[in-house]
């Protein structure tokens, strides 16, 4: 027993001595091995972004965020811009598969075109994150809006304004973008899920605008000619719906037609809420998406698991912007986030 106690005392003394030396070392801080591993694990890696096209608020916003992080953490960040051509995007993806970067961030023009190539890229060991527009293939990660939820939110707002006896009529017009994009197919599903429960709402027009504001304008002008008592419009994207809104304004029906649209929350979209062009603007918040994207890029680059081994996804929260909460916090400009 005594021997045991002695040993314990000695051990305690030793521990204290070590502790003291330790304490003196702590004056200059402790090296965090995890920080070093984090930085060295990312340095020199190669990330390639394949957007629909550069040159509009969403892709420029994400790219600005990703470029910042790449600079901070010393990895290579490149953009392959197919300029709205699905063909050029497919070719870029094919050449990326042989180039073998560490990670591809893909923005899908529709749910089919890249689906098989993204699976091939993962089979070749390249990790794949999809941003905001999904394909049919689930990859390592997806970050972005839940289009079904956007459709539901838009439809709920419309039901609230145009349900039986609430608006001038129960007529609603829908302006879609490109019929095969994830934003169209899933959003329409969300819209009709809600409208099925409200059979009094009448969809009087559902036309594709090809994301073209002038086409959206002339479609809405024609629809208003046919249905002067139109109660609401649901648009699929703020960039095109400036045209929809200007047709409604030109007809002098801004107070009557409730226009819902969605977008990245750029200041330009917010300006349209302030001046009454958009009644409700569902924002999927590009700076937030950019940050989530950065987190996923770092996580996947550091992860030891193979490409395609674990699949995760995150639908980011939406902000419903109306005249009441259109402010600096909810709206951004490219210069702010660069």
């Amino acid at each position, binding site marked *: 027993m005594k021997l045991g106690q002695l040993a314990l005392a000695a051990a305690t003394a030793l521990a204290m001595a070590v502790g003291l030396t330790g304490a003196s070392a702590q004056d200059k801080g402790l090296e965090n091995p995890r920080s070093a591993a984090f930085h060295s694990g990312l340095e020199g890696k190669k990330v390639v972004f394949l957007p629909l096209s550069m040159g509009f*608020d969403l892709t420029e916003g994400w790219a600005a965020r990703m470029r910042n992080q790449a600079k901070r953490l010393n990895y290579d960040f490149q953009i392959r811009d197919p300029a709205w051509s699905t063909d050029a995007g497919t070719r870029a993806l094919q050449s990326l598969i042989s180039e073998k970067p560490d990670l591809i961030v893909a923005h899908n023009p529709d749910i089919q075109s890249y689906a098989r190539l993204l699976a091939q890229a993962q089979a070749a060991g390249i990790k794949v994150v999809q941003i905001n527009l999904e394909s049919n293939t689930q990859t390592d990660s997806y970050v972005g809006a839940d289009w079904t939820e956007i459709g539901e939110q838009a439809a709920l707002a419309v039901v609230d304004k145009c349900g039986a006896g609430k608006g001038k009529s129960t007529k609603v017009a829908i302006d879609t973008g490109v*019929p095969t994009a994830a934003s169209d197919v899933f959003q329409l599903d969300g819209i009709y899920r809600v409208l099925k429960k409200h059979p009094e709402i009448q969809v009087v027009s559902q036309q594709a605008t090809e994301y*073209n504001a002038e086409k959206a304008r002339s479609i809405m*002008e*024609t629809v208003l*000619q046919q249905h002067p008592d139109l109660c609401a419009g649901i648009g699929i994207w703020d960039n095109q719906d*400036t*045209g929809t809104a200007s047709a409604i304004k030109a007809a002098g029906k801004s107070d009557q037609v409730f226009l819902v649209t969605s977008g990245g929350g750029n200041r330009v979209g917010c300006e349209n809420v302030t001046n009454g062009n958009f009644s409700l603007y569902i924002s999927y918040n590009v700076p937030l998406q950019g940050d989530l994207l950065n987190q996923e890029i770092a996580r996947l680059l550091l992860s030891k698991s193979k490409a395609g081994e674990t699949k995760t996804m995150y639908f980011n929260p939406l902000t419903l912007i109306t005249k009441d909460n259109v402010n600096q916090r909810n709206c951004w400009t490219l210069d702010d986030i660069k």
Partner: protein
Amino acid sequence: MTNTPRSRRLASRLLGSQEGIVFVLAATAFVVFALALPGFATPGNLVSLVRSVSVLGILALGMAIVVIGRGIDVAMIATMVVSVSWAFVIARTGYPLAEALVIGGAFALVAGILIGALIAYGDVPPIFATLAAGSIIYGLGRTFFFTLEMQNVPPGNDWFDFIGKSRVLGVPVTVIAFAVLCALAHFALTSTRFGWQTYAMGSNPNTARTTGVPMRAMVIAHYALSALVAYVAGLILASSASAINARLYNSTMIYDILLVIVLGGIGLNGGAGRIRNVVLGTIFVGILLNGMTILDVPFTIQNLVKGVVLLLAIVFDSLVNPRDEQTSQQGDL
């Protein structure tokens, strides 16, 4: 009974030319839509019908002059979006919008003159010259002039709304602009030396050259003119939609312009066609698009209908205006 020969003559005149056939088709489509769709033949809808295609019609006017002179300008959309977008970007940096618009117009003019010079002095076939020029102009714009494709009209310039949004005596200014430009182009083609020489160049370039038509100057004038027309169309477009989107360059708009030209009956061989052909083609496309929008026809089927109509028009064009050694040329479409 006595009327039969005259009506038969009328029928054969109508069906003997492409213009006549398209006229009959347009009239038929109009009557069918008017009877079948309750809201079609209302004054309000007819105004919005013409308005929705008047930008297309204006672009087709520029294209028509080039095509009659035996050229083709597929760079029009590039010129349009880049010059107007650039003007807006300049205005947002603090210049008054009016000055910025002059700079944008000057850019369009210079681009047109350079394209014309390439064709006139470089002997490059117009289709290739303008195809390449289009991507150069667009590339320059995207690289040096603006980052974002979508340019809103700079705020605080309410007067700019006038050309695209307002009405005079109930008629949209856009439609009036189309009518005025049609009248100007008609006058230029039928009553000026410029017009006669354009027809001469189109129907037989060699004879035109030997009889003293200043070919090179005329070619440059044609492309400068179509670039300016494209700029004007771009301004109207931007004013009516409150924004211009450079992505139009990647859309099917240039084919829609050719659709109007060919449907209206302006042969791609050059030397033939009048402004009334442009008006006819524009109105026919307008009737089709408006009717299909009211019927709520899905997007893919609308494209299918447009494609089939264009194909039929081109087939008919080559039957009515057959190609031979005299009329075909290198680089001919």
